[in-house]
Every structure is written in C-alpha cells, then in structure tokens.
C-alpha cells in the first residue's frame, strides 16, 4: 500500500538525506562520503538562527503558561492590586518591547503575542477579584476586541491564528450564553463559524496570490485553516444525514453551507491553487460524508439483519477509500505534470 513502482532517471531523483542514508546503510558509501554529501546538500549554516528561534518560542510559551498557572492558583498572599498591576506592567512591557524590537523581527512578534495572552490573563484575574458576574463570553469578547488592533498590524501568522481561536471561542460562548437560540436555530452557529474561518482562509489565499504579505505564505496556515473550516462544515452535514427527520432548519442551512464549502474547497485546491494536503483533507471529509450516507441507507434497509448491514458497510468503506486513494494518486501525478 505504501509503496509504488516507478521508473526514473538519475536526473529525476532528488538528492536528499534519505538518499544519502540509503547509500550509507547499504554500505555503498563511506562515513566520510556521507558527511560530505550531507554537508553539500544541507549546509547547516542556520543552526544558530534556528536554535535561537526555538529557544525564544518555547521559552516564551513556558513563561506565559507559568504565568497563567500562577494566576489560576489564585495565591492569597498576593494582593489584588499587586496581581492586577503586575499583569498590566507585563502587558505594557510586552508592547514597549514589541515596539522596540520592531514587528519585522521574531522577538517583537513574540512579545506582541505575549501581550495578547496577558490581556486574557488580566481579564480573568479581574473577574476573579471583583466577582463581576460577567458571562465567560464577555471575557473572550473583550479579549478578542482588545487584541484585534495589534493583530491587524502584527504581520505575524501565529498572532492571527491566536486571535481567531479567541474569536471562535467568543462566538460559541456568546451563542450559548447570550443569544440563547431556539431549538430550530441552534445549529446556525456552524454557519457563523464556517463563515468566520472560511473568510480567514479565503483572505489568506487572496493575499498570498497577490503576494501582498510574505508572512502569510507559510503553508501551515493554509493547512490549519482548511482543516478547521472543513471540520466545522462537516458536523451539520453528518447531523443532517444521521437524523434527516429531526433535522432543524438551521441544521439544513448549515449543511447546505457545508456542502457548498466542501465543493469550493475541492475546486480551489484542485484547480485554482493546487495543494495536495488541502485536497486530501477535503477528500477525507468527503469520504466521511459518503460513508455517513451509505451507513444511513444500509441501516434503514437492513436494520433487522445486522450481519448484512455490517458486511455491506465494510465493503462500501473499502470501495470509498480505495477510490479516494486512486483519485488522489492520479491527481498528485497530474499536478506534478502541470507544474513541470
């Protein structure tokens, strides 16, 4: 399954670490030759820079987590004024640091992100001290609003993803705690979230195509946003298929939005912005939809004879996933050919 036969010429085979290790492990080259080849292919002249960034990001993540844990402990020995002022100093320090180091550099960007996290800590501690009785959605709403300004100027993909996470949590909590939708409208939340995350993905693709922001071009941003959006769109579709008789209007509407979204994702990542990982995620989501339909049909047809139902479900699963694999393999080859 995980290998396939090909015929290549030496010029078509990329030289990489795998190839060198293969030669060395089969005794075809000496240790010195291996070292020479690896240094040739990967001149490790960026170690210092890479380690520096690793230390900064992990160090900052640990410091911030430690601060969150500390305030979650709610240490009685620290007075409320001390708690609030220390966090405020932290936020101001981060912002001054971000300005000082500039947002074009990783240090400034990490400091800005740290400031965003500390805003949330401040809101939580404020609520803890004054027992404001505010709903949780208000905390996330204010957090999202306060962080929006510097997110807009951050030029930092991680800051944007962080802001999107806070905003998604705000929308979900607001829907449950304040909007108080009727049963008929409850599943509209999937539509709203699909629009929010889908818009973020669309903007990411637009600005990447326009070459407007280099920092947006990191591929992981596309993968994260695609998977999140597909997952949000998939839920109402599966709910609709599972119990069509009890599906509310909001489930159906969100389901339709989800199906359109899947179609759009397929079209864009197959034809407009070819990307195998995003296409594979869309195809996997499609497989789950087809499986749900098939399972539902077999369940309705053979609910008294479970054995036939499970046999057919198993065979259908093999068929669906085999087709998906064949399709993706074929598409991957076509994409390579189109880009040669």
């Amino acid at each position: 399954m995980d290998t396939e036969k090909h015929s290549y010429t030496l010029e078509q085979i990329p030289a990489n670490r795998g190839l060198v290790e293969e030669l060395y492990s089969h005794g075809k080259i000496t240790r010195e030759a291996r070292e020479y080849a690896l240094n040739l292919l990967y001149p490790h002249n960026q170690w210092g820079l890479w380690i520096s960034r690793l230390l900064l990001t992990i160090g900052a993540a640990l410091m911030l987590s430690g601060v969150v844990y500390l305030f979650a402990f709610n240490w009685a020995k620290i007075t409320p004024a001390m708690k609030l002022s220390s966090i405020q100093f932290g936020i101001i320090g981060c912002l001054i640091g971000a300005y000082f180091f500039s947002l074009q550099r990783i240090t400034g960007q990490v400091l800005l992100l740290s400031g965003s996290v500390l805003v949330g800590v401040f809101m939580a501690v404020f609520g803890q001290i004054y027992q404001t009785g505010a709903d949780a959605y208000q905390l996330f709403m204010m957090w999202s609003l306060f962080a929006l300004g510097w997110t807009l100027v951050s030029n930092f993909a991680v800051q944007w993803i962080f802001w999107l996470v806070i905003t998604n949590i705000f929308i979900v909590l607001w829907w449950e705690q304040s909007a108080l939708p009727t049963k008929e409208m409850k599943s509209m939340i999937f539509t709203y979230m699909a629009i929010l995350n889908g818009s973020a993905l669309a903007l990411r693709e637009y600005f990447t195509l326009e070459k407007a922001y280099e920092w947006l071009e990191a591929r992981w941003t596309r993968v994260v946003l695609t998977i999140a959006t597909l997952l949000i769109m998939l839920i109402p579709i599966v709910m609709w298929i599972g119990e069509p008789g009890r599906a509310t209007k909001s489930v159906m509407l969100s389901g339709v939005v989800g199906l359109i979204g899947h179609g759009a994702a397929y079209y864009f990542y197959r034809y407009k912005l070819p990307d195998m990982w995003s296409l594979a995620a869309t195809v996997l989501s499609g497989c789950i939809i087809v499986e749900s339909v098939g399972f539902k049909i077999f369940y309705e047809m053979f609910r008294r004879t479970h054995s036939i139902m499970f046999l057919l479900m198993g065979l259908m699963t093999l068929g669906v996933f085999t087709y998906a694999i064949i399709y993706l393999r074929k598409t991957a080859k076509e994409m390579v050919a189109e880009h040669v």
Partner: protein
Amino acid sequence: MSKYMTKYNAANLLEQLNRKGFVAGSCLSDFIIDQQQEKKLPLYLRALAGVGAFVASLCFIRFLSEVGIINYKHETGLIIWGLIFVAGAIGLQQVAGHDNTVKHSFFMQYSFASMAVGKALFVFGIGRMLDSGWGVTLALLVITCITYHIYRMSIDRFLSSFAVLFSISVNILWDRDIGGSRELLFNGFFLLQFACAAILLTHGKIKRNYIPLSYAFAFSLCASVLYLSSHSEFGYWGHKELIPPAFINMVLAGGLVALFGWAAGGIEKLKAEPLVIASIGAVLLGLISAPGILLTIGLMVLGYAKHEKLLIIAGALLMPVFIFLYYYNIDISLLQKSGILIGSGIVLLAGRFYLKHKGWDEGGVSCVQK
C-alpha cells in the same frame, strides 16, 4: 520548493562524490535507480488508507460476530480466525503486486483491513485466554514479530510496534501484581525505549525497514512522558505509587547533551563553547524542568538535524498537549507547576539572549564552527 528539498539531483550528487574520489564506477547509479523504483506514498495517502482500513475492520469484526463465525467467549476460535485473517492479508498483498492499478489499490486496502481484523481477533483471543493485560502485550509482540518482515506496510509496522510499547507502559503503570516495583520498572522501560529510539534514529546503518519502528519508539516515549505529565501516582485504587520524574529528567537531559554532540558531528565537538553552554542549559533543565519540555526540545532538534518534518511537528504538538495535561495533574499544586514552567522558560530565554549576545544567532556560519 520546500526548504527540506535541495537543489541537487542524484546525478549531481554522484558527480560531486566522484569528483572528491568517494565513489567510482556506475554501480551506485544502478543501485539508486533500483531503490527509487519503489517509492513511498505520501503521508496523507497512508493516513487515508489507515482511516479506511480502521472503519472497514470494525464493520467486518461486527459482521463476523453477528453471523456467529467468531464468538468472543471462545478464545481458540478467536485466535484461529485471527491467524486466518492475517494470512489472508499477507496473501492479498502478494496478489496485489506493485502496479498502480485499481486492482492493486483495492487489494491493498482490503489486505490492510484484513490485517487489522486479524490482529485484533488474535490479540483479543490471547488476552482472554491468559486473562491478563500482559497477555495482550504478549499477543501484540508475537503477532508484530511474525508480520513485521513479511507484511511490508509502514503504517501497519508503526501501529503494531507502537501498540506493543504502549501496552507494556500501560501494564507497568496500572498492573496490580507489580505493586512495589512500579517506579523501577517504569524507569527501566523508559531507559530501554530511549536507548532503542536513540540507536534507531541516529545510527546511520539502520535499514529503511526499521523507520516505522524508530517512530514507534519516539511516539511511545512521548506517550510515557504524557502519562507522567497527567499523573504523578500510578497503580490501582487505594494502592497508588508515586513515580517522581527525576530519573526520566536525567535520562532526557543526558540524551539532549548526546544529541547536541551527534548533531554537531561527534562527541568531541561538545567541547566547543556553544555546545558547552547548550549542555549546561540541558543539565539545568534536567534539574528543574518537566520531562515534556525536555522531550519536546529533543524531538525538534533531532527533526531539524535529520531534516525530518514529522519529528519537528511531533515535538511542536507535544508541547501544548503536555502543558494542557500538566495543568490537570492533581498530584502537583498549580504553584509548583507554575514555578517549573517559569523556571524552564527563564533557562531557555537566558540561552537565547546569550546566543544573541555572542552573535551566534545569525545565519551564515555554523555556531559550532564559530
């Protein structure tokens, strides 16, 4: 072009090696072309195949149970049917061949599903027969050893090997009969896993067939570290035993120092100033930090050194999962956890500022060479 790709092709590389007098003749060209004929499928296709086989195998097991072919109360029947399915899976793989056709894809998917069903039935049967968690481990070990070299599918090799290691950890942590020596066994098993992972991941002579096994060890180490993050006391109700993370920290800190030496090109390179500083940092982290932090750094450095994105991603994902689980560890107070996290953060940031102060954080020349 991905930054993990290079501007060279195999012909360029051979030319360079030839020019330096490392190789002669055309035997390498034939070898490379021969090896490349069997190209690995991308990870997303393997993941898709895995999901499909998992769902299909659940359906088939349920079907067999519904028609009465397998009876969960009869262990022998389960074992025999398990072996039949495993044999069938191997047969299907042989029949499927290596061509890129619909028949091949379908047979391989069917084969993988059969293998999953067969292994599940076999393990369930032996587990019931021996009526012990160690029975499950034994069954997993036996079936994995039997199929590893015969059934050439990396996702099956990885999952089976990982299942063996995972079941050993679970048994050590929660088995009722090993009360009193739980800490010793867990630490010993961790050390063994660590040594195996280190050899498999860094030794140049390891064959491609063992890559799934090396990943199984790496992921099992992650699982062990995550257990220690979420709990400090293990065992059964009323007989919990504390497993302090000190030994694991020591192993991981030592491993990190060795990894720095390996990545720099040899243990003797550890005498270089940047690596002395890095080693002191690793030891400091070993003293004050938590295993999750050390393993995260280790995986990311190893991934960068080996140009393996999967290890870097595994390290990057381990960190938030560790921080999340650590929060809910009720055996340590939030204040202690906060101190550990802030202390570790300070060590790392201090290391970063030292790098910057020395000017080693600029690209161009390796800091070790500097």
